[in-house]
């Protein structure tokens, strides 16, 4: 896969992760009337959200560091 | 008792089906499972560690009776593994019906308070300074105390004085112990409402201070009554509060008469901020309004009071040869003995008889108060004349004179107006002020009527009714000055005791006690005039103190301190009535004492044993039998020292309870059903008012006292207030120089009232001493809320001044010429929640001539000046 595709894929995946984590997996939004509002619907949804944010930024790293230059990434 | 018995506090359906659970032990669970709790705080959780089996907890409920206050509410102690974890109200108990006041709940801390006296203490330093102590064994302590008491008693029983604050088992302490040892007995009476008690005993023959018939009263003068802050007569707080609220929901109107809006504060429709110490003129003016508007109950006055008695010129009753007082019979136009059949006595009138002029008491009273107009009273009391008239009119309207009501088949007078008063008798003219106030329901015919004026819980003649009428004056009084030419009527603990101790010869007292046993009493802290008390108690050669905490008195003057239990003991029996329903209860120890403390009964049994007065026909046990009214076969054997539990077991069986004390251990309280109208309403009784008739509008014997006192050479200051009708005069304290421009009065708080104990929960609610002052008065002195101030009191008789420092607290609801301080600060020592909480106002009050009533009862009123505290 080429670096642009990977990067774009990561950005899309990251934002999707953020979206789903925020709106679908984390504790629901709205007037908190029951215990359901205190627990994420999927465990560790907040971690997924943060991972999504990281994924978006990591895409830039991947984009730049993806093999193909003159040196090997030893990072 | 199992917890299923606890009822009355359930909510709807349960959401979880939890019945009896095995509890995880808190300690094991938390501390066991905590990992890495150092730097980042406790890391969760409660599941027990593997291999650690959860300890089963055993829960049970023990019924008992509150120890902290005076009204003895029923309690349930929740125990876990034998230790009390909570005290709740006992639902069945009429006085509190499943609830407790803040002190009641808080007393759980007393059970575990490590600042209590935990073993008998022997003083190791000189007296008069903070004590240093050595713990000794009970045997050594009791031996020492008994030896010193015995040694004094052998010389003269009156060298031994027993003084109590508040005790809960009169038959075993006041009567049996005092009886067996022949001790001179002192108590807190003069520092309580005793002037009021004497006034009621003398005027209507009942023991108590005025309170209403809350189920029926419609119009209430709340006169210095401290419902929201402190309690009242008979009960310390809770029962009155419950009844007041129900009455308010029913539509009771409340008029609050008080220099400081506290009494019934939230529940008052109108506030009359009366100048302190001027209640008598207000009462007299109200009497005049009632008479002027003719809202008086003539049949009651004629039949049940001495209003119709004929007075001779010299102020004595016109009597027949047998000495019976005479009334003017309008039928025959002759004087006839009061109470004769078939006569129609005149209430008013001036008649000639036997060449002399006689007039009825009522006519004389009318003359006496002819100048007591609302305008006159307004000048003195600060209450506008039209407001006095309005209250008088409302009293007259609400009294519904002439109306009756049917109760339990009795047709009874219905007069739904009453006065509630308690410690407001603590003023120089307190005795006469209370008499004047009693005249108001007397004129309205409300004494003992349905909805009317009540005093005691039952209509039973008090022994003082007759005793006070028999004028007996002795030339050799003891330190109480009872029967002396100075204070002939007093509660056998005049507030003069300290002064007499200092200078007995001045009052003709030949000797003072040498050995004292102080039972839950702290005169140095809780009686006014700390200075006089210090000097007096310094004269005692040996002082033993029975108290759970180290009181100021104990710390300064005790030789031995005997640590008493608090709640954890058998004690009683205690009345459980709330006026309307009768009950009797016992105090049951809800758990084993933690410290080496003993119940007072045990202490007295041991002391009597050592003194050799336990057994025998006149011994302690015989007196206990007598005072508990124990009848064979349920009497204590006189040759064997019983345990307190055995005493109550026999008592309970004697009451017809076959389970004995176990009944109370299971139920806490024995309910005796509703108080019947025939006991509750005097007019429903076979002899109305229990035979206490006529009520004394005119105090003939008071005049007699004055004459005899004068005859024996007592100066006028002592006898001037012994007048047959209440006579207003300017109180002595007004003689202080003008710069002492504020009245200082004191008050109680619900957090401490009658508890005298350093309990952290309530100390936190009311942490420190303050001086309440009206902001306008404060600002005129350059003071702001929270400023430190110096309060200096002045004695108008001796010129002495006293000073304390405290903190200003603004209150709009106080007369601008009055400042007020709460009690119960600075009375105990060696307790982290009491040390440094501030001075007691008792430091500022004076006792002695001018600052006691004619019945030697304490005045809690003094002129002071308030200024910014000097910088240190």
């Amino acid at each position, binding site marked *: 896969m080429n670096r642009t595709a990977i990067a774009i894929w990561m950005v899309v995946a990251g934002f999707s992760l953020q979206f789903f984590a925020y709106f679908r997996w984390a504790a629901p939004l709205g007037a908190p009337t029951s215990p359901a509002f205190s627990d994420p619907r999927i465990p560790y949804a907040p971690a997924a959200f943060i991972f999504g*944010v990281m994924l978006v*930024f990591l895409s830039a790293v991947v984009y*730049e560091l993806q093999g193909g230059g003159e040196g090997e990434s*030893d990072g | 008792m199992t917890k299923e018995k606890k009822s009355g506090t359930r909510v709807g359906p349960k959401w979880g089906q939890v019945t009896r659970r095995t509890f995880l032990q808190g300690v094991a669970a938390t501390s066991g499972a905590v990992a890495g709790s150092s730097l*980042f705080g406790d*890391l969760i959780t409660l599941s027990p560690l593997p291999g650690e089996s959860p300890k089963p907890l055993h829960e049970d409920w023990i019924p008992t009776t509150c120890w902290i206050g005076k009204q003895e509410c029923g309690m349930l102690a929740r125990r876990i593994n034998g230790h009390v974890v909570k005290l709740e109200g006992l639902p069945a108990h009429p006085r509190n019906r499943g609830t407790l006041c803040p002190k009641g709940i808080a007393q759980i801390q007393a059970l575990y308070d490590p600042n209590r006296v935990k073993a008998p203490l022997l003083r190791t330093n000189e007296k008069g300074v903070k004590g240093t102590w050595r713990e000794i064994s009970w045997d050594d302590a009791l031996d020492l105390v008994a030896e010193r008491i015995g040694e004094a008693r052998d010389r003269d029983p009156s060298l031994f004085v027993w003084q109590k604050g508040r005790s809960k088992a009169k038959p075993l302490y006041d009567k049996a112990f005092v009886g067996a040892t022949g001790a001179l007995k002192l108590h807190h009476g003069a520092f309580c409402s005793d002037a009021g008690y004497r006034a009621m005993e003398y005027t209507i023959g009942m023991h108590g201070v005025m309170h209403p018939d809350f189920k029926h009263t419609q119009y209430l003068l709340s006169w210095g009554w401290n419902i929201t802050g402190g309690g009242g007569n008979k009960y310390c707080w809770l029962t009155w509060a419950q009844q007041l609220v129900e009455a308010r929901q029913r539509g009771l109107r409340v008029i609050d008469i008080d220099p400081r809006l506290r009494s019934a504060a939230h529940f008052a429709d109108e506030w009359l901020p009366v100048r302190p110490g001027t209640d008598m003129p207000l009462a007299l003016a109200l009497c005049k309004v009632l008479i002027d508007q003719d809202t008086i109950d003539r049949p009651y006055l004629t039949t049940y009071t001495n209003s119709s008695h004929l007075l001779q010129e010299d102020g004595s009753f016109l009597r027949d040869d047998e000495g019976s007082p005479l009334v003017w019979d309008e039928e025959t136009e002759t004087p006839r003995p009061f109470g004769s059949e078939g006569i129609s006595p005149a209430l008013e009138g001036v008649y000639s008889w036997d060449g002399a002029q006689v007039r009825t008491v009522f006519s004389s009273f009318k003359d006496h108060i002819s100048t007591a107009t609302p305008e006159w009273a307004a000048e003195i009391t600060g209450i506008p004349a039209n407001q006095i008239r309005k209250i008088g009119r409302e009293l007259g309207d609400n009294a519904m004179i002439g109306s009756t009501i049917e109760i339990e088949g009795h047709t009874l007078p219905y007069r739904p107006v009453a006065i509630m008063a308690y410690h407001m008798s603590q003023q120089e003219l307190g005795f006469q002020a209370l008499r004047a106030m009693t005249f108001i329901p007397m004129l309205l015919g409300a004494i003992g009527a349905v909805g009317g004026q009540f005093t005691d819980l039952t209509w039973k003649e008090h022994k003082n009714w007759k005793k006070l009428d028999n004028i007996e004056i002795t030339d050799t009084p003891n330190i109480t000055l009872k029967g002396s030419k100075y204070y002939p009527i007093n509660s056998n603990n005049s507030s003069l005791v300290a002064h007499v101790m200092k200078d007995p010869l001045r009052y003709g007292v030949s000797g003072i006690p040498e050995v004292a046993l102080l039972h839950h009493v702290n005169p140095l802290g809780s009686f006014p005039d700390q200075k006089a008390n210090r000097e007096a108690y310094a004269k005692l050669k040996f002082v033993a103190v029975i108290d759970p905490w180290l009181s100021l008195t104990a710390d300064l003057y005790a030789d031995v301190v005997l640590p008493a239990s608090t709640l954890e003991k058998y004690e009683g029996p205690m009345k459980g009535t709330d006026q309307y329903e009768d009950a009797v209860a016992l105090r049951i120890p809800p758990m084993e004492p933690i410290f080496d403390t003993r119940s007072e009964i045990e202490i007295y049994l041991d002391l009597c044993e050592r003194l050799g007065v336990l057994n025998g026909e006149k011994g302690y046990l015989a007196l206990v039998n007598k005072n508990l009214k124990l009848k064979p076969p349920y009497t204590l054997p006189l040759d064997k020292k019983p345990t307190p539990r055995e005493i109550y077991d026999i008592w309970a069986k004697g009451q017809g309870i076959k389970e004995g004390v176990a009944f109370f251990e299971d139920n806490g309280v024995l309910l005796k059903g509703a108080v019947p109208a025939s006991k509750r309403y005097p007019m429903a009784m076979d002899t109305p008012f229990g035979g206490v008739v006529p009520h004394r509008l005119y105090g003939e014997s008071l005049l007699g006292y004055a004459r005899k006192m004068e005859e024996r050479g007592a100066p006028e200051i002592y006898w001037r207030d012994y007048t047959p009708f209440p006579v207003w005069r300017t109180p002595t304290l007004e003689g202080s120089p003008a710069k002492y421009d504020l009245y200082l009065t004191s008050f109680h708080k619900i957090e401490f009232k009658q508890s005298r104990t350093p309990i952290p929960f309530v100390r936190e609610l009311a942490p420190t001493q303050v001086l309440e002052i009206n902001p306008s008065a404060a600002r005129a002195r350059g003071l702001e809320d929270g400023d430190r101030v110096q309060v200096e009191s002045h004695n108008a008789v001796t010129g002495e001044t006293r000073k304390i420092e405290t903190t200003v607290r603004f209150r709009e609801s106080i007369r601008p010429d009055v400042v007020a301080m709460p009690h119960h600060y600075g009375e105990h020592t060696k307790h982290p929640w009491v040390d440094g909480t501030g001075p007691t106002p008792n430091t500022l009050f004076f006792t002695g001539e001018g600052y006691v009533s004619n019945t030697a009862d304490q005045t809690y009123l003094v002129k002071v000046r308030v200024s910014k505290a000097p910088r240190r």
Partner: protein
Amino acid sequence: MNEKKRLPFGMGRLGTKWWVLVGVSLTLVTRGIIAYSQQASEGEVVTGMRDIGPMGGAAWGLYIVFVVYFVGISFTGICLASLIRLLNLKVLRPIVRPAEVMTVIALILGALAILADVGQPGRAFLMLLKYARPQSPFFGTFAMVISGYLFGSLVYLYLHGRPDAAVLAKRPGLLQRFHRWWAAGYGDTPPERARRVRSSFWLSVALLPLLITATSTLGFVFGLQGGRPGWFGSLQAPGFVVMAGLSGVGVLILIAAGLRQALGEKERLNLELFRWLADFLLVLLAGYLYFLVVEWLTNSYAAGPSESLVSQAILAGENAWIFWGSVAFLTLPAFLLLLQRLRGRVSLPLIVACGVMVNLAAIAKRFLIVVPSQTHGMLLPYSTGSYTPSLVEWEIVIGLVGLGGLLFALFVKGFPILELDRDYLGGTK
């Protein structure tokens, strides 16, 4: 040349001034650690904070003030860096790296300040990853500001540092492995350069809105609270953004001035650059003063009774000296900078003084936002509360500032604090 053999910008050489900086910082950090261990063992009873209500305290105090302050600084750092790159502002180019470093360090300090504040710091990480709720405005602070934004800034710093790292990676020495790791094979080839430019652009594009969102979220932490008079309001978030800009530019001025002094880089960090920064400051000051007037007008015109109590406490009560002090420290710089601008002069000491003043004003303003609404903004008639930071709180906060200095000092010695010129070491290439 001798110059060429040595590492640039004082890297690797530990001079006296550096040791003094490190020594002072370490002292502060040590004191902070001691203070924090006190707090950790005794609990936050060692702070001046107490419960709102009967206890009459403020539940948030100096820690939260500095969370807001640190995050604000970081915002400006990355914001300026992005703008400079996006708009290719040549004059300001030299402060791009200091700004990026400032961002990362300030965010770390912000995160630590939050840890200092919470009662269960050990738990906080786990519970937040497990349970964090988007509905809580803190979600923004925790998830976006601290994690997302910190990560983003690190990526930004990292990628922009690669060319320099690549250059330095060629030099033998202690730091070679570090630089080699950082360079990650960057060869400065034209495609790499192109990628560099492209990713840089997109990163900036991605960062800027995140920044505004994140900083606004911090405003929402307060602005969404209807129950605290003085907090609720739509101006809260934009106000936070502008104030963040002020404090950030202020700190950047100090850093730039410090570097100019310490490194003797009078050419790269020239007065023109400071003029630009001063202009930024002036514009932001004007903006903020506008907000201030609007806020004050609104409050005095139609504030509810509780709002009035809070503004009363701020304008005339016990906090008045802080308020009027901050107003003075905002208007005085504005006046001085305007005067300087009109006279067409550039005075470095004056600009530095303005930087110091706006930072003090920023801390003071944050204090006024956080505290009086708690102590004086009670909607039930509790007695008025009070809050005075305790010594422990000051020590921890100053320790954090010290930690910032320490991290900066360490960075400076390990990586070029100013971007290397294109032809740097060109000869050896």
